């Protein structure tokens, strides 16, 4: 019995291979995009975790000299001999294949166990003798290890995946030799388990300041938003993929109803039947899931290098560009595939389980019922309201995303009623029987297409929203770069003495030499950078103030007031007129707030003499040089030669801007790719819905055909209907997309980064997207249309035969 029933069941797929393909592909698409995003997120997070674990560095407080200079071994010993448990770290940069990498040398004897070295040691059986005595060992990831392996001047390299990209970990003794900085210490890690009775730092080393453990919180917070964005995209793709599954499963059971009726009439119990169906769905889900995972892996592998570059460039987060297969990822991907398939099939299965044994197939059970439509509209509005209430009650990123989810989901649910409303209007405007039939037929089709149209709505709205955000960000960012980077080039000296020489050399040769001097102050939980500036027209004219008192610059330059960045203003609620505490015992009035994109920390600007009054030792090594652009390159070259400056010491404004823009573009390349993918999936959903509707459509089309409309004419009308519905959906998607954009710019950004972006509108992009939506619908409707054109008249005739 089971065997016979199974064979009968599977015969359906043999006869409809395209349907089988569609179903499996739907599951695969849903799983694939979701898994791709998960893989990218997991990989990036793993990279942060590795970086954090590598030094453990960020777990511990740090001691360093207030003036930023390196410490001596004698200073380290003073602390140690006073009982302070600290581990010395020497850090520097190394040029490898033209790029700079950070080399961190930690006292491996005193430092806590470092996972990277522990693991590498276990694998390669490293003896302490090799790691601690000359020539020593370098630890780096595979890519860097290969590059370092070609350098005979460097110690042997041990490959380990636990060291983040572009970083080298080693013992401090080895670092000294490689960096040629014997006897220097960059900073000290304050270890746990300090002894009783340890004297205070001010007593034994007044020159040192203790900086609180910075943790991975910064990176996590910053990148959270990025990952949430990706997750939202992944979920969206998943949902859209499920629409396809839903459509195909509905279609297959619709077509198998006669078969099911026959089987049940022959005595197949309902429970066995359901078990067979569930087994079938499960197998298909697993098949689709496996294909989806493969797909997801490929997508992730293709996107990850850009994501990694973005994260590194924009946030300094140490992400790597390669995907590794994690068991949890495989399991969760398959789980999502199975759960999604069952969810998408639930409605069909429910209906099937309640089907009377001898119910006739092919009855028109679909029609736009006004009552159901009104309920759906109310539910949709309720979901939007829930999102708004959540946002009003709670705060932060999650609340922002709740609001966004509420708006999107609610709007999607409200779409079919809205379209139905539009069609009522259309019916009133329709003239002639054919036009009236077309509109009426569209209303009949609406429930069957509504899920696919919802998918299209979401995809379009996401496209408009994200597109608007990116474009607004780009405009603002460009403007901001132009405002902030006003110097022709920037130069960094080795030390204060050279800084003075540089300034003297530059003074007669340029229009202005502006010192860039700052002190890092840790008050409370986050660091604050206070910059001291000298009066110059370029500040007064270009500095991007978003809120300011009158005569703001005069008050700042005469030392009466300070400027702070937007992040700090929003975080601490400080605006012009407020008083800000810059350091213990140093308070100033805020005269203005400026935008400061991409900076996670607080920043303040005061007159240089005010800064020096509180921090006389701030280094004087960086300068912004103003001169006509055509002389810049030449002078920079002369400067390099005169002072034997390393390549990174002089940075041209143009190059800096170009680099910043490149990083920016990379950031949003990923979102662009995902945009295209979601739209494609939505188009696919329309196709499957139309195919599902196909069998129900014949009884509706046959009478019209019998009345004299050609098959070709009918086919064109099919296309027209699909495109019209898509057009209406696209029109409704524009306001939704703009709401989404506003949420991203004014809510999500503020919560995630602490800055608000002005919103610019790009109507031309909407027109392009509108056309794209029509094209998507047309392509999706093309297959059913062709099928209709080639439909043998006999089949249309058969409709009448079957009816009675």
């Amino acid at each position, binding site marked *: 019995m089971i065997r016979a029933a199974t064979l009968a069941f599977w015969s359906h797929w043999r006869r409809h291979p395209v349907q089988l393909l569609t179903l499996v592909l739907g599951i695969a698409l849903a799983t694939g995009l979701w898994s791709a995003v998960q893989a990218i997120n997991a990989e990036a997070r793993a990279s942060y975790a590795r970086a954090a674990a590598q030094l453990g560095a960020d777990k511990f407080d740090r001691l360093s000299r207030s003036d930023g200079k390196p410490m001596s071994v004698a200073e380290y010993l003073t602390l140690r001999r006073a009982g302070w448990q600290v581990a010395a770290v020497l850090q520097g940069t190394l040029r490898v294949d033209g790029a700079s990498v950070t080399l961190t040398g930690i006292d491996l004897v005193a430092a806590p166990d470092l996972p990277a070295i522990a693991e590498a*040691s276990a694998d390669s059986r490293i003896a302490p003798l090799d790691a*601690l005595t000359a020539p020593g060992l370098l630890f780096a990831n595979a890519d860097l290890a290969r590059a370092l392996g070609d350098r005979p001047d460097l110690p042997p390299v041990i490959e380990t995946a636990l060291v983040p990209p572009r970083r080298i970990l080693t013992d401090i003794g080895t670092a000294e030799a490689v960096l040629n900085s014997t006897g220097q210490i960059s900073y000290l890690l304050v270890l746990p388990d300090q002894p009783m009775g340890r004297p205070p730092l001010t007593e034994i080393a007044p020159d040192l300041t203790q900086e609180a453990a910075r943790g991975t919180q910064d990176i996590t917070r910053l990148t959270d938003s990025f990952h949430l964005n990706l997750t939202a995209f992944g979920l969206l793709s998943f949902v859209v993929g499920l629409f396809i599954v839903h459509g195909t499963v509905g279609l297959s059971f619709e077509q198998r109803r006669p078969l099911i009726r026959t089987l049940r009439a022959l005595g197949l119990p309902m429970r066995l039947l359901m078990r067979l169906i569930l087994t079938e769905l499960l197998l298909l889900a697993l098949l689709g899931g496996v294909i989806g995972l493969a797909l997801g892996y490929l997508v992730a592998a293709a996107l990850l290098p850009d994501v990694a570059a973005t994260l590194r460039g924009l946030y300094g987060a140490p992400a790597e560009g390669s995907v590794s297969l994690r068991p949890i990822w495989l399991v969760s991907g398959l789980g999502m595939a199975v759960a999604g398939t069952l969810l998408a099939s639930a409605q069909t299965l429910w209906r099937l389980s309640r089907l009377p044994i001898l119910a006739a197939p092919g009855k028109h059970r679909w029609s736009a019922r006004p009552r159901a439509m009104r309920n759906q509209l109310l539910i949709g509005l309720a979901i939007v309201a829930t999102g708004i209430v959540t946002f009003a009650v709670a705060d932060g990123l999650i609340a922002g995303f709740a609001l966004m989810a509420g708006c999107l989901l609610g709007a999607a649910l409200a779409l079919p009623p809205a379209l139905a409303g539009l069609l009522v209007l259309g019916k009133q405007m329709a003239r002639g029987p054919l036009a009236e039939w077309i509109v009426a037929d569209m209303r009949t089709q609406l429930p069957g297409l509504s899920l696919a149209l919802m998918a299209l709505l979401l995809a379009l709205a996401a496209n408009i929203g994200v597109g608007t955000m990116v474009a607004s960000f780009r405009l603002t960012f460009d403007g901001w770069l132009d405002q902030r980077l006003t110097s022709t080039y920037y130069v960094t000296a080795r030390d204060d003495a050279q800084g003075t020489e540089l300034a003297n050399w530059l003074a007669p040769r340029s229009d202005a030499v502006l010192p860039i001097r700052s002190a890092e102050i840790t008050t409370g939980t986050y660091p604050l950078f206070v910059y001291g500036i000298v009066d110059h027209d370029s500040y007064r004219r270009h500095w991007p103030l978003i809120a300011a008192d009158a005569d703001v610059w005069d008050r700042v330059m005469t030392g009466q007031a300070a400027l702070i960045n937007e992040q700090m203003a929003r975080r601490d609620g400080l605006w012009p007129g407020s008083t800000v505490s810059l350091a213990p015992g140093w308070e100033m009035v805020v005269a203005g707030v400026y935008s400061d994109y991409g900076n996670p920390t607080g920043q303040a600007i005061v007159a240089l003499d005010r800064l020096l009054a509180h921090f006389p030792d701030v280094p004087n090594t960086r300068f912004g040089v103003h001169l006509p652009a055509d002389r810049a390159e030449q002078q920079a070259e002369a400067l390099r030669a005169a002072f034997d400056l390393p390549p990174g010491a002089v940075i041209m404004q143009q190059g800096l801007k170009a680099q910043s823009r490149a990083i920016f573009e990379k950031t949003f390349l990923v979102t662009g790719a995902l945009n295209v993918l979601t739209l494609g999936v939505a188009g696919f959903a329309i196709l499957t819905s139309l195919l599902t509707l196909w069998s129900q459509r014949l009884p509706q089309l046959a009478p019209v055909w019998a009345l004299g409309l050609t098959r070709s004419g009918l086919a064109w009308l099919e296309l027209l209907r699909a495109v019209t519905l898509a057009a209406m959906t696209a029109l409704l998607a524009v306001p939704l997309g703009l709401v989404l954009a506003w949420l991203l710019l004014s809510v999500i950004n503020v919560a995630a980064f602490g800055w608000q972006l002005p919103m610019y509108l790009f109507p031309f992009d909407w027109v392009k997207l509108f056309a794209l939506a029509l094209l998507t619908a047309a392509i999706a409707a093309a297959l059913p249309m062709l099928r209709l054109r080639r439909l043998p008249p006999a089949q249309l005739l058969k409709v009448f035969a079957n009816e009675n």
Partner: protein
Amino acid sequence: MKIRALLLLLLWPWAVSAQGFAGLGTAAEGFAVPERGVELHFPADHGAHPDFRIEWWYLTATLDGADGRDYGLQWTLFRSALKPGEQEGWQSPQIWMGHAAVTTPDAHYDTERLSRGGIGQAGVAASPFRAWIDEWEMSGDPLGAMRLTAAGPDFVYRLDMQAKGPLVLHGDRGYSVKSQAGQASYYYSQPFLHVSGTLDLPEGPVAVTGSAWIDREWSSQPLSDDQTGWDWFSLVLDDNTRVMAFRLRGSEDFTSGTWIAPDGTATPLANGAIRTTPVRRAAENGPEVPVEWHLEIPSRGLDVQVSALYAGAWMDTSFPYWEGPVTVTGSHAGRGYLEMTGYR
């Protein structure tokens, strides 16, 4: 395996052989090897011997608190060389490890320090004698006045010490055999120190007086392959006699010791002269170890029970071992220290 763990393996010879690192603990690989008949010279030999693989300065003290309670403390500096010789700076092959502990009748506080040589963070100078790691220091004249300090998260101690007797050479004039196969070390002691000072504990400071015992040992091949650990006793009897006795556990136990008369006259106790029998075991703060022993030296008429002051005196260091004060009852009365390693 971690670098630190590897270092500790080197520093901790019995862990080496117990961990199956055959060869590390027994082969000398370019290091100097103790030789019978070499005369020890002082004060030079109070200092470090960087050509030998391992070395330690080991002080234990049994104390009476002004509050009427018994206390014990430990101060140890280990040296282990990755290769023979010393070098300036971070690339020195000499690694130093400090262990310090205070034991009360109901608690045990300990801590561990690590450093490399070459930068001055840890080391030993022979004359004037000074052994230090970080802020911990043992200094002065081992035949006169000395000072001792150490601190951990839960304790600080500062002691003044006064030698009341001579240095004692173990084995054959300081050449102490450790196995049937002939592994040996140089080994001498200063067991005649009177001490007074203060312990700062979580419950507050307490003034203490008592007696201390310094052990000095260096070698390059301390154990044979089959030896898994040892039980080591240093006892100060009420008649002012001192007894050092140890049993190295292996496929065949090896015992050795020294009978030290009140005037410092030392008599070696050959393999088999000492009988140690566990009486009661306990597993407090660590694996099960014998915390009460029956110790017999028939040739000297010694037949005593040795009981731990606190059964949980486990050193919670990278390689745990048991080290704590004991009381002696039976044919003789007294106090002392017990060290047990290699139990798991």
